[in-house]
C-alpha cells in the first residue's frame, strides 16, 4: 500500500499518485465472499487519464486537467485562495460560516474521528483517507497563506497548483456522511470541510464533477430533471408505470398530476421513475388505497426531488429548493411529502429550512412518516406472511444521522415483515455506515471511479449486509432482501451487489420500503416483489 508520509506531501511528486491500494491487502469480506483472490480485479486508471488529469490516487473523480502554462497554474492557486477567503465572509458564506469556522479553529488533531470513517478503515488506514488529512491541509493553507500566520502556530505546507488540485480531488473521496463528526470530542466536522472545499471549487473556480453539475443540477434546472426527463416524458412514464403496476397488483390506479388544492405534493427522486418504476407505482398504490388527497407535479423540477447542490454548491442548492417550494405553492398543497430519497429529504426539509420564507415556507414531511401513519391508521389490510424472507434495513445517512428519522421505517417493517425475519445491521440507526454512494458517488462513474467506490466506500456496507445475513443460508435460491429507502443508496447497493455478483452467488436482492408494504397488502395480487434482477 502506498500512502503519504505527511500532510506536506500533498504538493510533492507531481504526476505521481500519493496513495494506492493493493486490493489483496484489504480486509477480507465475510463468507461467502471471504476469498480475497476471488474478488473482481480493481480496474486501473488508463495511462491517458494519468497523463491528462491531476493524479491523487488510484482514481479520478473531478477531471482537473493539468495546467499547461504558469498562468494556468497560478489561476488554480489564486482561485482557491480567493474562494477560501470568501468562505469566511458573511455575505458569501452566511449559510455555513459558524460551523465552518468552528471546524477550522477547533480541531485538536487527535485522530479520534479516524476509526469512524469507513473509507479510512476499508483502505487499511491509508493516511490519505484519514478524515483529518484533508482538513489539516485546508487549515494550514488558510493560516499560512490567507492569515499569514507563522507555520509554527498551525503547521507548515507548501502551496502549489498540485496541492490545490489534489485537495479538490480529495474532497471527492469523502461521502459527507458525518460519521466522523459524531465522534469528535470538540465538535469539529471534517465532512463539512470536505463540502466547503467542494464549494470553493464549484462556486469560485467552476470545477465540479460533470455527473453532479453539468449532468446534475444544471440539467435539472434547465430541463426539469437530472434524468433528462421533460414534463411530457415524465407524464408518459408515469402513465406507463400506472398500467404496469395495475397489472402486477390487480388494482387500477391513476396517478394524479397537478391537482390544485391536493393535500400532498409527493416528490420522488426521478431516478425512481427511470430505474425502479415499482417504487412510484407502490407509492401510488398505497396512497390511493389509503384515500389520501395527493398529487405529483408535471412542472419542470417538480417531479424530481433531487438537489445535488447539498453536496457542493449553496447557490445551486437554493435554486432547486426554491423551485420545489414554488411549485408546491402554485398547487396550493398543504404539505410536501418526500419520496424515498435521503438527500432530497435533507435538502428540502432541513437545509432549505433557512432559505424558504413566507408563502414558500410550506411544511415538508418524510414519506417514512406518511407511510407509517397510513399503517397505523389500519386502513391497509396486511398479510405479513407475504414477506416471509430475511430482510435487513439500510439507514440512509441523510434520514438518520442528519434528520433523526429512525423509528418510522422500523415501525413499518414491524408491521409488514413476520417476526424473526428482520435483522438489524450493526451498527444501525444514527450510527449507521453510509451505503458508499453518499455525496454524489452513487452517480459518479468516470474512469474507474466505480471500482474505487466499490472497493473503498461501498465495501463497508456490503460487509454489513453480509454480516446481517450470516445466520441465513447463503444459497442463491434463499432470497434475502436489503431494504434501502433512498434512491441513491439503492443505486449504490445495486452496484455493489452487481460488482460482487451477490445476487447470483448469495441471493442478495434489494429494493425500497414501500415495495415491502405493497407486497404485504392483502388486496394486491401476491408477488409484487418479483425477485428478478433488474
Amino acid at each position, binding site marked *: 500500500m502506498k500512502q503519504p508520509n505527511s500532510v506536506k506531501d500533498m504538493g510533492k511528486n507531481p504526476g505521481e499518485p500519493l496513495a494506492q491500494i493493493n486490493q489483496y491487502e484489504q480486509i477480507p469480506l465475510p463468507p461467502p465472499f471471504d476469498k480475497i483472490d476471488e474478488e473482481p480485479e480493481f480496474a486501473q486508471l488508463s495511462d491517458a487519464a494519468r497523463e491528462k488529469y491531476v493524479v491523487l490516487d488510484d482514481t479520478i473523480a473531478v477531471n482537473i486537467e493539468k495546467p499547461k502554462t504558469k498562468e494556468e497554474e497560478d489561476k488554480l492557486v489564486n482561485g482557491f485562495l480567493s474562494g477560501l477567503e*470568501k468562505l469566511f465572509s458573511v455575505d458569501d458564506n452566511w449559510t455555513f460560516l459558524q460551523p465552518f469556522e468552528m471546524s477550522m479553529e477547533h480541531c485538536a488533531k487527535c485522530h479520534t474521528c479516524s476509526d469512524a470513517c469507513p473509507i479510512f478503515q476499508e483502505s487499511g488506514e491509508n493516511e490519505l483517507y484519514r478524515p483529518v488529512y484533508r482538513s*489539516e491541509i485546508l487549515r494550514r493553507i488558510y493560516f499560512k497563506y490567507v492569515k499569514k500566520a507563522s507555520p509554527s502556530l498551525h503547521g507548515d505546507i507548501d502551496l502549489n497548483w498540485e496541492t490545490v488540485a489534489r485537495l479538490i480531488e480529495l474532497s471527492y473521496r469523502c461521502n459527507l456522511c458525518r460519521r466522523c463528526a459524531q*465522534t469528535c470530542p470538540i465538535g469539529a466536522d471534517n465532512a463539512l470541510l470536505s463540502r466547503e472545499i467542494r464549494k470553493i471549487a464549484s462556486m469560485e473556480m467552476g470545477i465540479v464533477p460533470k455527473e453532479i453539475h453539468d449532468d446534475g443540477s444544471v440539467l435539472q434546472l434547465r430541463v426539469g430533471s437530472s434524468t433528462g426527463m421533460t414534463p411530457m416524458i415524465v407524464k408518459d412514464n408515469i402513465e406507463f408505470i400506472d398500467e404496469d403496476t395495475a397489472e402486477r397488483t390487480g388494482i387500477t390506479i391513476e396517478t394524479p398530476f397537478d391537482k390544485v388544492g391536493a393535500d400532498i405534493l409527493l416528490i420522488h427522486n426521478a431516478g425512481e421513475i427511470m430505474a425502479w418504476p415499482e417504487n412510484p407505482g407502490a407509492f401510488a398504490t398505497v396512497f390511493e388505497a389509503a384515500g389520501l388527497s395527493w398529487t405529483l407535479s408535471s412542472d419542470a423540477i417538480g417531479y424530481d426531488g433531487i438537489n445535488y447542490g447539498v453536496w457542493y454548491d449553496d*447557490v445551486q442548492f437554493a435554486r432547486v429548493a426554491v423551485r420545489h417550494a414554488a411549485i408546491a405553492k402554485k398547487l396550493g398543497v398543504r404539505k410536501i411529502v418526500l419520496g424515498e430519497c435521503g438527500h432530497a429529504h435533507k435538502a428540502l426539509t432541513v437545509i432549505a429550512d*433557512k432559505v424558504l420564507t413566507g408563502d414558500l415556507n410550506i411544511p415538508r414531511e418524510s414519506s417514512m412518516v406518511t407511510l407509517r401513519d397510513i399503517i397505523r391508521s389500519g386502513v391497509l389490510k396486511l398479510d405479513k406472511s407475504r414477506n416471509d424472507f430475511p430482510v435487513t434495513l439500510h439507514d440512509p445517512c441523510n434520514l438518520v444521522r442528519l434528520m*433523526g428519522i429512525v423509528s418510522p421505517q422500523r415501525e413499518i417493517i414491524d408491521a409488514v415483515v413476520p417476526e424473526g425475519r428482520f435483522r438489524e445491521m450493526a451498527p444501525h440507526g444514527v450510527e449507521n455506515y453510509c451505503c458508499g454512494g453518499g455525496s454524489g458517488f452513487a452517480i459518479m462513474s468516470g474512469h474507474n471511479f466505480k471500482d474505487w467506490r466499490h472497493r473503498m466506500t461501498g465495501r463497508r456496507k456490503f460487509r454489513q449486509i453480509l454480516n446481517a445475513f450470516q445466520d441465513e443460508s447463503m444459497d442463491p435460491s434463499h432470497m434475502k432482501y436489503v431494504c434501502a429507502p433512498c434512491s441513491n443508496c439503492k443505486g449504490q447497493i445495486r452496484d455493489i451487489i452487481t460488482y460482487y455478483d451477490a445476487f447470483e452467488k448469495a441471493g442478495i436482492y434489494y429494493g425500497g420500503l414501500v415495495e415491502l408494504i405493497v407486497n404485504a397488502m392483502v388486496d394486491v395480487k401476491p408477488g409484487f416483489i418479483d425477485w428478478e434482477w433488474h
Partner: protein
Amino acid sequence: MMTTFAYVVAYLGLVFFLIACIARFMMWSKMPMHVRWELYPVAHEGGGKAAYGGSYLEDTEWWTKKREVSLFGELKVMVPEILFLVALREHNKKLWTRSFPFHFGLYLVGGVTALMLAGGLVVGYLPENIAAPVAKIVNLVAPFLGGAGLVLGIIGAIGLFMRRRSRALRDYTAPADLFNLVFFIAAFGVSLVSLVVYDRDFSMVTTFITNLVTFDLAPVGAGPAGLLLTLSVVLLALLTAYIPTTHMSHFIGKYFAYHSIRWSDEPNLAGGRQEGTIQELLSRPVTWSAPHIGADGKKSWLDVTLEDQTK
C-alpha cells in the same frame, strides 16, 4: 517588589482572560444564522427520542405540534462530557487516559483558584464570625484538591506531550501545540514545587489571593519562598491570559459547537421569528466568481437564486 510584580501580572492575567473569553464568546454568538446542520442524536429531543437519535421530524405533521425540548436531556449529556470527556473515552481510550487527567487537573486547579478567590472575598469583606469558618474550609480543601489538580495536570500534560510526539500524531503537531503543553508543565510544575517546598498548608497562596481581592499589595513570603511564589503566579497568570487566544479556547467554542450547530434543530416555522433574519441574509450580495453563479457583487442571494436557469 517581586510580589508587587506578581500582583500586577495576576490582575492583568485575570482581566485579559476575562476580556478574551468574552470577546471569543461574543464572536461566536454574533455570527449570522446558518443553515441547519444538526447531527443526531440531539440530546434535547423529548419523548424518549434522544435515546435512539430520533427527532421531532418523526412526528405526524410535526409543524403543528409543540416541540418537546428537554434541558435535562442536554445536561445529561453535557455535564458528563465536560467533566469526564465521555466522547473521547468512548472513541479514543488511548488519548483519554492522558487528556482526562489533564483536563480534570485543570478543572481542579481552576476550581480551587475560584474557591480561594471567593474565600478571599469573604475573609476580606465579611465579619470575622463568617470569615473564620470559611477560611477554615478553604484551608482544609485547597491544599488537597489544588495539589491533586496540579499533579494530575502535569501527568496529563506530559502524557499528551508524548502522545503528540508519537508516530501517529507527530505529523499533525505544530510547534505551538508542544509549546502549549510545555507551558502547562512549567506553570504547574513551578507551582507544585513552590507549594511542596514552602507552602504545604497553602497559607502563602491563600494570603496572596486574599490580598489580591482586597487590593492589599502587601508582600507575601520572603527569600526563595517569595521568589518561587512570584514565579508561579506569573507563569499561571500568563498561561491564563494565553489560553483564550489559542485553539485551547475550545472550551468556549464547544458550547456553540453543540448548542448552535450539532443540536440546533429549531425549525423556521411559517410566519415565525426566523423568517425576517433569513430574508435579510438572502438580500446580501454574492461575489462568488464561477460563471454559473452569475454574481456581479451587487446581485443578492435571492437574485441569483431566482434567475432563470432554463437557457
